[in-house]
């Protein structure tokens, strides 16, 4: 929070100690023409063509706005104050952005791009509704993006941050397929906890070719071993409601006292995790955590964790095969390092790509969904069972969702990741919580 940041972060004394960083280079001087360049949004680029070629890189424009809002947590009377990013139209006029103030999206939209695409991501800081006194800047840090130039790495102390009312054109050329994350790096301990975080899929250039009966893959595996029929972001985060309430009440938070009280998957806690995409009761948490598949499907779970705690994720009754870690295929040449497990141990800032094959439908354990379709339910939860709570005593809550396995043919092929059947259209001004 800038009004306090004057006292925060690196003191001058600290900076002058930075011997290892070499000589002090005082820059500055008067304004020069270079500084007078007008900011122009790079959205005049060609929009994404249909039927994208696998080889020729595409130009991917994305526009995110940074703002605040509230989310809903079971067992809690008041909605929880959060910061976040929201998916806004590419061609939105600056004043039309006001419609998105306070319309936060938690977690931030899933960004899906292809390997070697040219990704133009514009971040516009449209300010906060609840705390107009806060003029916090924001950034986008593509977590795990290799060999980035500092200017696009989104760390305010080593490059720049974006103040309220301004925008910045981040550019990425992802050359590494896999599951990544992104988050704000400005006062990160606060802004990430407040909700400015999401997941990124980089699709391998192998996609579209047919290998081993698949045409969608987690990695350029060459043999279809990472092929899948359906994919799901399983984005983990835990919430410590104290700083959220403190911010709303204009109070300080002592971060070392970190003590989470809600544990979320895709921004939702059980039982809300089972509601469909864009559920009207969860406007600011539009991304469902429910995993609906058909018997025999090979399913890719893209697990990512931007909470501050390690989790032990289990899909009770179905073994997981971990084929990727931190956007890296678990293979060295001919040496296969992938592994089967019942427990995916995943720390903060880590990503795992886990495959499972949906078991045959078992009519002895059938349940019926809202559409009258039968399915088998399997729990996907953190084995840190003390975290299966919603802020207090009582029964199951928190970081738990389910995999619903339907008989073959019961649900359509997946049109987009995390698709639910049915799912609601986004409620204006919201767009969908995924950008592909």
């Amino acid at each position, binding site marked *: 929070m800038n009004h306090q940041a004057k*006292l925060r*972060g690196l*003191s*001058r004394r*600290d*900076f*002058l100690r*930075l*011997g*290892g*960083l*070499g*000589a002090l280079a005082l*820059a*500055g001087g008067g304004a020069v023409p*270079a500084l007078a*360049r007008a900011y*122009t949004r790079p959205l005049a680029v060609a929009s994404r063509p249909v039927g994208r070629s696998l080889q020729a890189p595409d130009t991917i424009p994305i526009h995110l706005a940074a703002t605040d809002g509230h989310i809903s947590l079971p067992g809690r009377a008041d909605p929880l104050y959060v910061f976040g990013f929201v998916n806004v139209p590419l061609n939105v006029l600056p004043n039309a952005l006001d419609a998105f103030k306070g319309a936060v999206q938690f977690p931030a939209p899933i960004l899906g791009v292809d390997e070697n695409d040219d990704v133009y991501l514009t971040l516009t800081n449209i300010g906060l509704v609840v705390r107009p006194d806060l003029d916090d*800047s924001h950034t986008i*840090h593509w*977590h795990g993006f*290799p*060999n*980035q*130039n*500092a*200017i*696009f790495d989104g*760390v*305010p*102390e*080593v*490059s720049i*941050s*974006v*103040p309220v009312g*301004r925008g910045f*054109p*981040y550019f990425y*050329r992802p050359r590494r397929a896999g599951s990544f994350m992104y988050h704000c790096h*400005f*006062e*990160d*301990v606060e802004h990430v906890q407040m909700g400015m975080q999401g997941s990124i899929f980089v699709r391998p250039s192998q996609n579209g070719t047919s290998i081993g009966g698949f045409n969608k893959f987690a990695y350029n595996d060459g043999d279809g071993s990472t092929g899948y029929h359906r994919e799901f972001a399983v984005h983990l985060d835990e919430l410590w409601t104290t700083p959220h309430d403190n911010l709303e009440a204009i109070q*300080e*938070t*002592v971060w*070392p006292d*970190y003590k989470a009280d809600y544990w979320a998957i895709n921004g939702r806690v059980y039982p809300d995790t089972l509601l469909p995409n864009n559920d009207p009761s969860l406007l600011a948490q539009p991304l469902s955590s429910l995993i609906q598949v058909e018997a025999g499907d090979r399913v890719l779970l893209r697990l990512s964790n931007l909470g*501050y*705690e*390690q989790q032990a994720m289990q899909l009770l009754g179905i073994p997981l095969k971990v084929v990727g*870690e931190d*956007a*890296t295929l678990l293979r060295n040449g001919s*040496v296969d*390092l992938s592994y089967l497990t019942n427990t995916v141990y995943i720390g*903060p*800032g*880590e990503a795992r790509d886990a495959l499972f094959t949906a078991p045959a439908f078992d009519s002895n354990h059938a349940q019926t969904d809202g559409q009258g379709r039968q399915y088998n339910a399997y729990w996907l939860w953190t084995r840190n069972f003390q975290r299966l709570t919603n802020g207090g005593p009582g029964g199951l809550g928190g970081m738990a969702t389910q995999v619903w396995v339907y008989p073959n043919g019961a649900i359509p092929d997946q049109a987009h990741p995390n698709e639910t059947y049915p799912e609601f259209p986004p409620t204006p001004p919201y767009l969908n919580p995924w950008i592909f």
Partner: protein
Amino acid sequence: MSPKILRKILLSLLVLTGLLITSPSAPTRAVPSIGLQCTTGPTFNLATDSGYIYTPDGNSIFMWSFRNGAGSFQLPGPVLCVNQGDSVTVNLTNTLPEPVSIVFPGQSGVTTSGGSPGPLTAEAAASGGTVSYSFAASQPGTYLYESGSNPTKQVQMGLYGVLVVRPSMGANFAYNHASTQFNPSREFLLVLSEIDPLFHRAVELNQSYDLNALNDDYWTINGRAFPDTVSDNDVSWLPSQPYGALVKVEPYDANTNPFPALIRYANAGIFNHPFHPHGNHLRVIARDGRLLRGPADEDISYEDFTRTIGSGQTYDLLFKWTDVEAWSSGGNPIPVTIPGLQNLVFKDGVTFYSGSPYLGEQDELPVGVTSYNECGEFYFPWHSHALFEFTNFDEGFGGLATILRVDPPGGCP
């Protein structure tokens, strides 16, 4: 007065004094002294000692640690460097008011002489007792050494250090395998730990404290909290924290810079820390002093962008940064227009940024922005992603973090 209030006063004072006193004098070290700093053996005389370390927010914390013989108090203990096959002897003199011992995780056949039996190994009695430990450094790698006496208390108090065993293949290899060759001028050790200042104060004042109620406020690399971690080795203002943690590299080049940096992680703390380098993936080549190779020499090393380092674990990693896109203002400009910098925010008016998005280039910065950029080099944080550990007390951009500095090819002039 609460430590928090104390901190704020200290901090504001330091800001002022920083301006008044230190502005005129730029850092004087011509050749920055960074990277692994060895104390060589194979016979070491260590003594336990107590002293104080400093945190960037102006706090000072009572610690216990190992010092080198008659040397002065330091945290962590000396980095013990030996060669594979050496017969290592560590003679311990204990000046602390309770028995202390040393265990050597990853070493086998450790023999002791003197001292008295303790729960885990032979101990040196309180206030002047001695004990000796001997073992053969049979396998290369990165290892911890730490107190084996009430470690719940003593290791947290600072009684830990690192042992580096050089392979017989030579000091430019991490292990006896060609794949582990690295650039000897790019060898870095990062030892992680945590500090609950109230617990340390209780020990200092000989008050009781429930170790089950530890609540850390500081997180350290090599005994320093960021940004002190990026200061040189042996800087005068950190007299008891000699080891810097800045990681500095130049872009990979097959001809002029072919070998990676070697990063040695060790977690002396009691928490598993998720450690995240910006810049590039790291390749984990060894765990706890054992090379990640299969029975038929299969390469079972792996890359990741965050490594959760378990308590008591060590990792050896190879690191390269590659200028993949080779952007330059001349032939290969970035395809977007950077807004006028005066329209952006440089946090707290200070930055590591050069004013230019291009490696090796500098450009103007807005009036009043202080830059620590030398020649257009890049800086990236390297930090715990349990982000509350990326703080000093509750000050952001501190704690369990250091910085990766990427110089343009050939380095800064």
